[in-house]
């Protein structure tokens, strides 16, 4: 079972779908950021699986996964800073109450 690329890619696809659901359905801005982290992790799992089963990608897979982790850390930093800055003005973490650009 753990010797098949398809199993890893299926797992990654299901985790990505869970993250998509969280991003579309949750009301809390930080929940949406956590769902984005889930989706990034799913993509990382797919990259690692390719690096581990396809010979020409052997070390490149790990390198790309490390790059994705660094970019995810940068994204989390800036995203949470934006959420905290909005919270300071609007006093709510719920995204459906952020309507300043719709009025």
């Amino acid at each position, binding site marked *: 079972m753990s010797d098949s690329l398809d199993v890893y890619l299926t797992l990654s*696809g299901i985790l990505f779908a*869970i993250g998509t659901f*969280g991003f579309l359905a949750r009301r809390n801005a930080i929940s949406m950021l956590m769902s984005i982290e*889930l989706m990034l992790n799913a993509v990382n799992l797919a990259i*690692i699986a390719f690096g581990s089963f396809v010979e020409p990608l052997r070390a490149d897979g*790990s390198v790309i996964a490390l790059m994705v982790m660094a970019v995810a850390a940068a994204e989390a930093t800036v995203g949470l800073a934006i959420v905290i800055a909005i919270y*300071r003005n609007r006093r709510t973490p719920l995204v459906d109450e952020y309507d300043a650009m719709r009025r």
Partner: protein
Amino acid sequence: MPRSLLNIGAPLLIVGALVSLPVGLAFLGVIRFNEDLLFFLLAEVMLLSGLLVVTMRDIIRCGLAMIVCFGALAGIYVIAGAPLVAAAQVLIYIGAISVLILFAIMLTQTKDAPASLVFQTQALGAAVASVILALIVVITVAATDWGELGTRLHTATDALAQVLFRDYVLAFEVVSVLLLAAVIGGVYVAKREEGGPP
């Protein structure tokens, strides 16, 4: 009394079901008694805690379930033969990003936040869309020939370092500049302005 019994019994029941399913499958001969058993266990822990992250009401518990999900994923990386990435996963995701998210939760949640509605009105549509997305991915994976080998390749750390600091050294430097810019930008955005709202 029944409530405390439920608080102890329900987690025990869930853990028992999680452990007994792969072991039972192994005894039935569906999966083998080697890394497959561990992989199955880690995969179900990862998927279950991922579902808990997007469905639980209390957002602090969502953050803690996210840590469990990342830990199980690190175990899967070890089984897939990428131990350095697993170590980086533990350090960066469990050690840094999760703590950052937990602190942001504590800074932004009001007392009545768990009592209010958790999902938006389009939650049902989102559920349908994500199930369709998962189905499309699974069908595509099953239908495509990726040219893969039948066995896993182990990525040695010294070979990884050779590739990282020879072929990808420009990307490495660009990522370090990106991290610096993100740190400065994060501090600037989250900084309290003089005379602004407290």
